[in-house]
């Protein structure tokens, strides 16, 4: 930790809630010492973000027991017992950063542009390309309707076609994009395409937009370089978008001009964790309206936003997209589709209410499973190898021949190679039992092989991600000690299980040196106690055809990290298949919940359970 920085106030301005945390050095270690929350006040009637920011800071102050803000002004640096040395901030309020991206070919340059924008924390409203099905006029009209904060344009490799790139620029110019915030503001265009075409682009667009040129995100078909575009988007986000949102000028002053889009900061923490542990990491942040999925696979970072899958406003969308049967299959009781739809719809119109009955908690968790599952599927479609690239090695070429994937990207996410899954968002962080969060993540992601599972304890990944830009060691220390709650490790052979028949034998050396052997049985789950900070060595012998990470039937040596739940041997197979008969399904789901002691024993009979609360 830097000699200068002893204390930090970090704030995340979310779309509904503004959350403040205070991190301090105590006894040589950096710890989370206080937090506070308040409703976000960006929209009417308050229309001043600082009202919510000051209230959240005041609540953190009250818990901390010392003053941070005086007369509405942040006290910085820390002097004696007052103030903080550093203030950092993230924001996704007001819809965050809304962008349109444009490219030549939907599956090549336009897709790279979309990845760059998503990685910068933007909500991508539309992707325009020359080969999309729309007519010229429709594309222009669509650009007119959208009112993005910024447009990212890609197109062409550096020695490629210029006229098509110029055509895309002309469409953008003809649409005369208008900003959604502030009438005198010119929407910026970040141009990250064929460098030989940049003057054409400036000529075409320069009268109506401010053009910022960055290196090509696709200089050749085989290369993708998203970082310069991401950095420029972020810089313009601060200068243009944030500076015009209500009250943000003051916030920018507090933050000394360092505000990041929330998803960018969360992605930063994922990348740090992946790097520190040399691991492939997949993470999810499930919010009220959207679900973000992040992955760091072999050092490559991807982010996807499922804009209409969430736990409050868009909860009916989850039901519509997944299908009510897919939500209901996770429940240990019968519920009619009619009743299920009503319960979920009532949450949509009263999004800030909380489940007070076990039945409704189970339903919310079932919806969360499907929201994450669908978002993960969507993410796997985005995190693909580059299209238009010939794969290099002999084996790859042979495989391409059989799969005919030479000209189409394939997902880089192979579940057997994912080492860790991190979950974030209220439904996970605030689950009454940690075993509920673990089971939710296991059911939604269906990890394969040996996978560590974690949950963000209080949703402070954005705060730590932006802090990491300035104080990486401090941020990482708090991340590992206070933010990330290890749930445990899941061992799940990839196989088709037969009920009760072994899929693998797991030989364990426990923390106290004792040895233990367990079988992973088809359709069953077993929990082996392994607490936080504990590790067990595993020697896993799968049956023929079952894969635990080294290939079908091949043994694996690994390590299990303990946590709030422990080591879970998951014999349900991948993908998890539900019996056709309802009574068998009910019995099976009930067994799963019992094996992880996920929910209270009583009142799990289903609809019509006891009401009211008690001490």
């Amino acid at each position, binding site marked *: 930790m830097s000699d200068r920085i002893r204390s930090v106030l970090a704030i995340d301005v979310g779309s509904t809630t503004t959350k403040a945390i205070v991190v301090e050095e105590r006894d040589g270690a950096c710890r989370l010492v206080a937090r506070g929350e308040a409703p976000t006040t960006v*929209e*009417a*009637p*308050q229309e001043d973000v600082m009202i919510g920011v000051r209230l959240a800071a005041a609540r953190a102050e009250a818990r901390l027991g010392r003053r941070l803000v005086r007369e509405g002004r942040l006290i910085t640096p820390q002097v004696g017992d007052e103030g903080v040395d550093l203030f950092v901030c993230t924001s996704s309020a007001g*819809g965050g950063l809304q962008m349109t991206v444009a490219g030549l070919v939907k599956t090549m340059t336009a897709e790279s542009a979309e990845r760059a924008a998503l990685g910068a924390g933007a909500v991508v409203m539309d992707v325009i390309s020359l080969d999309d099905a729309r007519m*010229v*006029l429709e594309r*222009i009209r669509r650009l007119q309707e959208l009112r993005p904060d910024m447009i990212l344009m890609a197109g062409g490799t550096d020695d490629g076609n210029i*006229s*098509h790139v*110029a*055509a895309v620029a*002309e469409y953008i110019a*003809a649409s005369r994009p208008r900003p959604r915030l502030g009438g005198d503001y010119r929407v910026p265009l970040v141009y990250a395409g064929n460098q030989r075409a940049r003057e*054409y682009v400036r000529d*075409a667009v320069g009268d109506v937009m401010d053009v910022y040129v960055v290196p090509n995100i696709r200089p050749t078909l085989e290369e993708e370089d998203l970082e310069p575009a991401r950095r420029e988007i972020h810089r313009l986000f601060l200068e243009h978008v944030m500076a015009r949102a209500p009250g943000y000028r003051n916030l920018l002053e507090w933050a000394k001009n360092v505000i990041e889009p929330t998803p960018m900061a969360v992605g930063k923490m994922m990348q740090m964790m992946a790097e520190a542990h040399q691991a492939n990491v997949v993470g999810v942040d499930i919010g009220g*309206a959207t679900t973000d999925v992040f992955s760091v696979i072999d050092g490559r970072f991807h982010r996807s936003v499922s804009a*209409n899958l969430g736990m409050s*406003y*868009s909860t*009916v*969308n989850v039901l*519509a997209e997944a299908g009510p049967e897919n939500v209901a299959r996770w429940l240990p009781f019968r519920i009619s*589709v*009619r*009743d299920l*739809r*009503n*319960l*979920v*719809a*009532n949450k*949509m*119109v*009263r*999004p*800030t*209410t*909380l*489940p*007070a*009955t*076990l*039945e*409704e*908690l189970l339903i919310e968790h079932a919806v969360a499973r499907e929201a994450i599952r669908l978002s993960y599927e969507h993410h796997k479609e985005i995190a693909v190898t580059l299209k238009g690239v010939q794969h290099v090695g002999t084996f790859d070429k042979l495989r391409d021949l059989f799969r005919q994937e030479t000209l189409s990207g394939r997902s880089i996410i192979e579940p057997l190679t994912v080492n860790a899954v991190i979950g974030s968002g209220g439904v996970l962080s*605030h689950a*009454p*039992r940690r075993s509920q969060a673990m089971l939710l993540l296991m059911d939604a992601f269906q990890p394969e092989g040996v996978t560590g599972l974690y949950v963000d304890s209080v949703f402070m990944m954005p705060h730590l991600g932006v802090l990491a830009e300035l104080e990486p060691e401090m941020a990482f220390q708090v991340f590992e000690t206070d933010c990330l709650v290890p749930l445990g490790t899941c061992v799940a052979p990839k196989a088709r299980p037969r009920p009760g028949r072994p899929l693998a034998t797991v030989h364990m050396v426990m923390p106290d040196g004792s040895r233990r052997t367990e079988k992973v049985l088809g359709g069953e789950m077993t929990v082996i106690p392994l607490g936080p900070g504990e590790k067990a060595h595993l020697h896993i012998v799968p049956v023929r055809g079952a894969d635990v990470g080294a290939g079908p039937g091949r043994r694996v040596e690994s390590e299990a990290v303990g946590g709030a739940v422990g080591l879970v041997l998951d014999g349900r197979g991948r993908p998890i298949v539900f019996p056709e008969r309802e009574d068998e399904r009910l019995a099976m789901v009930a067994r799963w919940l019992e094996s992880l002691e996920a929910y*209270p024993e009583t*009142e799990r009979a289903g609809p019509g*359970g*006891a*009401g*009211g*609360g*008690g*001490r």
Partner: protein
Amino acid sequence: MSRAEGQIFERVRISRKRVIPLPGEVVVEAGDRVCPSDLIARAETVPGDPYIVDLQNELGVRLTPEQVSKVMLKRVGDRVLGQEPLARTEVGPFREVREARSPVDGVVEFISHAYARVLVREDAQKAAPVVILNVARKLDVAPALIRAYMRYREGDEVRQGTILADAPGGLGVEYCYAPATGVIERICTRTGTVTIVRPSKSAQVDAYIEGTVKEIYPEKGALVETTAAYVQGVFGLGFENHGPLRVVARDPSETLDAEDITPDLAGAVVVGGARVTLEAMRKALHEGVAGIVSGGADMEDLVSLLGRDIVVGITGQEELDLTIVLTEGFGSMPMAEDVFEFLRAAEGRTVSVNGSTQVRAGVVRPEIILPLDDDEPADPLEDLLARREAEKGEPTVGAKVRIVRNPKFGRWGTVVSMPSEPVRFETEALLPAAEVELDDGSRVFVPLANLEVF
């Protein structure tokens, strides 16, 4: 003075801007008293078709982007007449002049230098509603035989530029292109002509509420204002509607079913109780009922009524002649007593209803507007809504509250204590809560998040 109690605002000033999207004619004047169905403004126009002129084709030369600027005689936004030159160049040793001409009267809307194409938007005012094309002459075939060459029949929709008919010609195949977008009304085998009727777009807006015209927006519409009682729902479908209130349910817990919807309810806004069935909604549509106000309805039935899933976003854009306003939520939800009694007391009076709902970002809720007979001053609705939003906070002992989540969804009560420590619920979650005494005297702990405070 205006008062807000739950979902009811007893006296508010409501101002609504009533405008059409195209320039047209405003048919009212400031000071006019209007009823909901009175027309405020209207416009009628045939939309202009876009025509693309390929410069390289017309001029017979290849053009670079720089050369496009040099040959163009017109710029974006210039008005042009049919056959007026858009671009001109000289070709060959004898400097032969070639021109690309506009196919119609209109405006130059877009010039693509990259592709050397010009888009001319036909002048909507001059666009003829009917276009007659002599296909027989174009294809050089006998009029009696044109049906054999036509790719379309009467009643088919065609788009401008598509091939209408083709026939073998001297140098291969001769094509005849549709000169306009529209519907083929007639194929005449006597004259060899095809008649295409172009779609006309008309726009009009009515007053929606009973009130007074306060301000005119020339060629667009007017501002209509009224003093009214206002009831806010939680979810709705369908757009603006109006009609006399008819309270069909006898109490707020009843279900409105098909047999309750009778032909004499045509044009009325029907008030039900706890639930309205799919059959009742369908019958209401069939009988021409203007609106249904109910405590609740099953989401599944609303989806069946619409024929598609309801996903997040704003409702009100459905093509539904019936407006539905739910006051409590989904399922069987007894209407709040005060709302039911309020509506019952207003039976027979004309109300305006709108089912538009947007849950997120600039919340829009369905509404029922009941104009009052007097013009006593009242606070604007927006101010009262904002004040209510700002006053929302944690309840205090003695506050009147309503429970808005299971268990005890919809029950009213009074806060009798506010525990300083979070309360443990059946879910094992520890939540800030209040102890509420219900209307039947029983007491229950309820998470603060699940209470509406009044």
